[in-house]
């Protein structure tokens, strides 16, 4: 009972933190104390937080390294933006279309997660990382050669150029290969972003503290032991992977509706993006959801606040990644920390004794 209360308190702190940030940002905007630069960062911030939390589900909770998170985001972004474009005349309300696009983006990314997950999750460790990386690159490549148009006779596909679509006069080109999708309505707002962050947290935190979540963590800690007590490894792995992918899809839709043009460039959906999210997760602490949020917010805001650091931003990320990993995982560092903690405890004991 006590532990349940503890979890509740911990989760409430996490939710409270997000809501507090939202109130703070709103107050700053209302009182006109926020620069336009910072305002422009608010929605991307929500996107990064969702991505970091969802990646933490795969890396921290499931214990498998995925380097294709940007790939799932890309799938979600394009399917969501595609839906918004196609339904432009059918559903005139931008808000409703955006809401449906979010559901569709999540669903498509989730389905991709399952499709990729079924074969890939049989692999272990390094192989899984490289295959997810390959997947991200394949998705980016495919979208860059995809041309989709619509006219009175229906949809047309091509992998060459807009001309070979063979559209009639009423035809509209929806996806223009490397140029991607243009003209998506800018429907994403900070408030919607925060609501989506809260939703993501609700899903992930409840999953972690459920029977399913414990099963997933048991796979991470010892796969063979988990299997021997009757946990269906494939099922739980796939579940965590698909949920993580679907949430990345949500972030993708948010991303697509925050920009008027969407293209699958290496910068937006490439390997670097996946690594950046991984840095958030690692710095925040593997498996620590609140840490992911804080790391995503701090690492996004910091380089913008310290303009001069912008050139060194990626360099700092790299060093952070290496130092954090050595500090957290090296057997010697763990031993050193244990000794240090022991000393600290002794000191505290002696001071309390003196006080008594």
């Amino acid at each position, binding site marked *: 009972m006590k532990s349940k209360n503890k979890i509740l308190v911990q989760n409430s702190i996490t939710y409270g933190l997000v809501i507090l940030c939202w109130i703070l940002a709103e107050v700053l905007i209302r009182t006109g104390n926020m620069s336009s630069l910072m305002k422009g960062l608010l929605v991307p911030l929500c996107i990064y937080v969702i991505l970091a939390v969802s990646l933490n589900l795969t*890396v921290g909770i499931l*214990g498998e*390294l995925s*380097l294709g998170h940007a790939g799932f985001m890309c799938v979600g972004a394009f399917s969501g933006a595609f839906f918004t474009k196609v339904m432009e005349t059918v559903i005139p309300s931008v808000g409703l279309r955006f809401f449906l696009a979010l559901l569709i983006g999540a669903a498509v990314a989730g389905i991709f997660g399952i499709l990729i997950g079924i*074969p*890939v999750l*049989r*692999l272990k*460790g*390094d*192989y899984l*990382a*490289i*295959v997810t*990386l*390959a*997947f991200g*690159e*394949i998705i980016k*490549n*495919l979208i*860059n*050669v995809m041309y989709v148009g619509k006219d009175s006779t229906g949809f047309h596909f091509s*992998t060459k150029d807009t001309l070979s679509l063979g559209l009639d006069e009423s035809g509209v080109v929806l996806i223009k290969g490397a140029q991607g999708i243009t003209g998506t309505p800018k429907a994403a707002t900070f408030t919607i972003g925060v609501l989506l962050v809260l939703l993501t947290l609700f899903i992930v935190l409840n999953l972690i503290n459920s029977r399913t979540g414990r099963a997933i963590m048991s796979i991470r800690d010892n796969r*063979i032991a988990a299997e021997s007590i009757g946990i269906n490894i494939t099922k739980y792995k796939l579940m965590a992977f698909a949920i993580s992918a679907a949430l990345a899809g949500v972030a993708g839709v948010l991303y697509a509706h925050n920009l008027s043009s969407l293209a699958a460039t290496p910068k937006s959906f490439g*390997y670097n993006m996946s*690594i950046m999210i*991984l840095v958030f997760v*690692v710095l925040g602490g*593997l498996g620590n959801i609140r840490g992911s949020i804080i790391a995503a917010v701090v690492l996004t805001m910091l380089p913008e606040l310290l303009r001069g650091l912008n*050139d*060194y931003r*990626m*360099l700092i*990320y*790299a*060093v*952070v*990644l*290496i130092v954090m*990993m*050595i500090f*957290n*995982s*090296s*057997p*010697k*560092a763990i031993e050193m920390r244990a000794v240090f903690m022991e000393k600290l405890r002794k000191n505290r004991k002696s001071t309390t004794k003196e006080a008594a």
Partner: protein
Amino acid sequence: MSFLSYLINGISLGSIYAIIALGYTMVYGIARMLNFAHGDIIMVGGFVIFTVVSTLSLPPALGILAAVVLCTILGVVIERVAYKPLRGASSLAVLITAIGVSYLLQNVALLIFGSNARQFTSVVNVPGLKLADGALTISGVTMVTIVTCIVIMAALTQFINRTKVGQAMLAVSEDKGAATLMGIDVNRTIAITFAIGSALAAVAGALLCSTYPSLTPYTGSMPGIKAFVAAVFGGIGSIPGAFIGGVLLGVIENLSKAYISSQLSDAIVFSVLIVVLLVRPTGILGKKIMEKV
């Protein structure tokens, strides 16, 4: 005839992949880690040669020598500083560290050389070969690349089978604990492996930049990843496997570029990886490892 020329260019590209893949496969076989930074050592090698040859205008041979020496030192330093403290840690931790090192090398190069592509002057001065009345041309770089790859393969096989250090490498890859008991210095052996792998990466960098003469801080990352695909394809940990995997992958990439779509060739190469891992996860020449509880 055009098919033949695509094929030969494919083999040449594949030979570069094979040289890079050797570094991956040796390190993986011995340290059981995926050295993500291996691809970026190629880039460092490229920039060293560029600096020596184009900026200091010294002879190309000196450039290659400098690249090999510097990359060897770099490889050993990286192993010492970043990977050695993590020996015994989870593979996830090591992999993330390796990604960090790769990122670090790229961004240091970005700060020093900027993101603009540099024109790399070829270090190979061998005239091309015209066959069948000029219908088939094989460039000098292509021939040098293929020959270099074969020489390196042969030398490495001899080194591992005939020398004491090579035998020590085999022993460490088989069983670290038992190797230690036999008096093998495991740390030294791993350091030597990194040194050899990085020296090969420098050679690969020279050949790669001579074939594709534009040099950026990201030059190494894609060939690096593809060479890893080649290593997995051939069976990771196996030296002939790296050669076969590399050449096959180069041929697949070049033929798909020529006959399917140049934009989709990367996607095809990566699909090969996924299919290989699903059908035969240990690769063409890999050994199946039984898992003990």
